[in-house]
């Protein structure tokens, strides 16, 4: 009985999440189309709302092509290694004070650790495809992600210092006076840049540069494995947007204390939606960064600045607030 309840909970969690990630692809196409002054998909279903279903049906109905000398085990394991860390990271994020699947005391560290596991997925797709171009794309992707993990870790540590806890729910409640973005405004751009690099979105989408490397590290993937990689990336996007909101913009707290009648879930959803929208805007606005500049930007600029700000916040906490 217990296992049945747990299984039901899992299904009730994962299926809406997949549907949401599917509709995110539709939303992205419509938003980018509106920015470019054209109409996005509007033929499938009413105003194109069934477009994600059409995409999924097309992807599932295709043939799974395996390159001849590819390692079959790695080839099939890799998309799972991209999808599962994304799903694992989303359980710690609080949508409201009670609506969190796992209220871990080390939630922040957990997210950092699990997202590092996602790198293996990229590496395995690249290696298992047995193709030069996939390997190049994958290695570039891995370099990019591990380079930007370091500033991200420093920023997360600074937030944990400021909020005196790594539990995401407590980080939200500690922002009830002042949202974290105010004292941390100089490193907020660093956080945003690291997020863009970790989810490999434009301007850092070289691993999967659609017009250059022909889908980069997942060039050999055709149907269901490709759908899994695709969905994994969008779920990653949701995770990092929700993380931005929780860490910097007060999570499920209202804008000011007069508006408490609106339920916290609604606040969280609105804020996450705005962050996701800004991801789509960035895709439509910014050009792609050249790969060596991408790496040198992380190592030479972001790491020193985030380390310096970490020291500044640590001194501030020591001398101006009793630690």
């Amino acid at each position: 009985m217990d296992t049945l309840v747990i299984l039901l909970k899992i299904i009730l969690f994962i299926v809406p999440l997949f549907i949401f990630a599917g509709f995110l692809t539709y939303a992205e196409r419509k938003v980018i189309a509106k920015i470019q002054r054209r109409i996005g998909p509007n033929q499938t279903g009413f105003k194109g709302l069934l477009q994600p279903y059409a995409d999924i049906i097309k992807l599932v109905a295709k043939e799974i092509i395996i390159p001849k000398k590819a390692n079959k085990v790695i080839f099939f394991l890799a998309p799972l290694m991209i999808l599962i860390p994304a799903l694992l990271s989303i359980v710690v994020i609080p949508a409201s004070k009670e609506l969190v699947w796992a209220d871990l005391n080390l939630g922040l560290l957990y997210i950092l650790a699990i997202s590092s596991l996602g790198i293996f997925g990229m590496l395995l797709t690249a290696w298992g495809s047995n193709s030069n171009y996939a390997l190049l794309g994958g290695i570039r992707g891995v370099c990019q992600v591990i380079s930007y993990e370091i500033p991200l870790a420093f920023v997360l540590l600074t937030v944990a210092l400021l909020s005196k806890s790594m539990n995401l729910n407590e980080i939200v409640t500690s922002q009830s006076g002042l949202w974290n973005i105010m004292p941390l405004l100089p490193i907020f751009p660093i956080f945003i840049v690291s997020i863009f690099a970790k989810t490999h979105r434009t301007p850092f989408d070289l691993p999967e540069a659609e017009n250059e490397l022909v889908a980069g590290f997942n060039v050999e993937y055709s149907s269901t494995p490709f759908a899994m990689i695709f969905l994994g990336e969008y779920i990653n996007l949701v995770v990092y947007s929700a993380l931005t909101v929780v860490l910097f913009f007060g999570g499920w707290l209202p804008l000011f204390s007069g508006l408490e009648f609106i339920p916290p879930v609604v606040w969280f959803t609105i804020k996450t939606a705005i962050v996701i929208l800004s991801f789509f805007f960035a895709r439509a606005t910014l050009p792609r960064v050249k790969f060596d500049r991408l790496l040198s930007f992380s190592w030479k600029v972001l790491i020193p600045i985030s380390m310096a700000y970490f020291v500044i916040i640590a001194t501030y906490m020591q001398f101006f607030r009793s630690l």
Partner: protein
Amino acid sequence: MKLYKIFSSIINGFSVTLGMFFKTPVTIDYPNNQETPTSATKFEHALMPDDSGKLKCIACRMCEQACPAGAISIKAQEDDKGKSILESFDIDYSKCIYCNLCVQSCPVGSIKDVPCLDSAAKPDKSSFVYNKDKLAENGRKYKVFIEGSK
């Protein structure tokens, strides 16, 4: 300072994008919304009727001679007074190059170009040939449009 330039250029880009987000799309969702055509559009032809309903065409064959692609075929007969009576008038749209020299050469203004796009995707070749009745029907449909645009 260089940092200021970087930030200001990114913010400038985003403001442009945000501005574009709120403007109406330029694309026209074609079969559902159509733009009203101007009088300069050239799609098909029509044989215009005069006010009493008879076709203006005097079967002088000027359009047949003017057509560089030989798309117009006219059959006419002389009646006892020597006037030409139009028997059949075919325009073959697989040959027509839409140059409108026939329209320019008509002395009575009988053949006109009308913005009628109903034949945009025809499956078989025989439907490319428009005979007199179809052209006359075009004429009746677009009489007001042609006379309004003068």
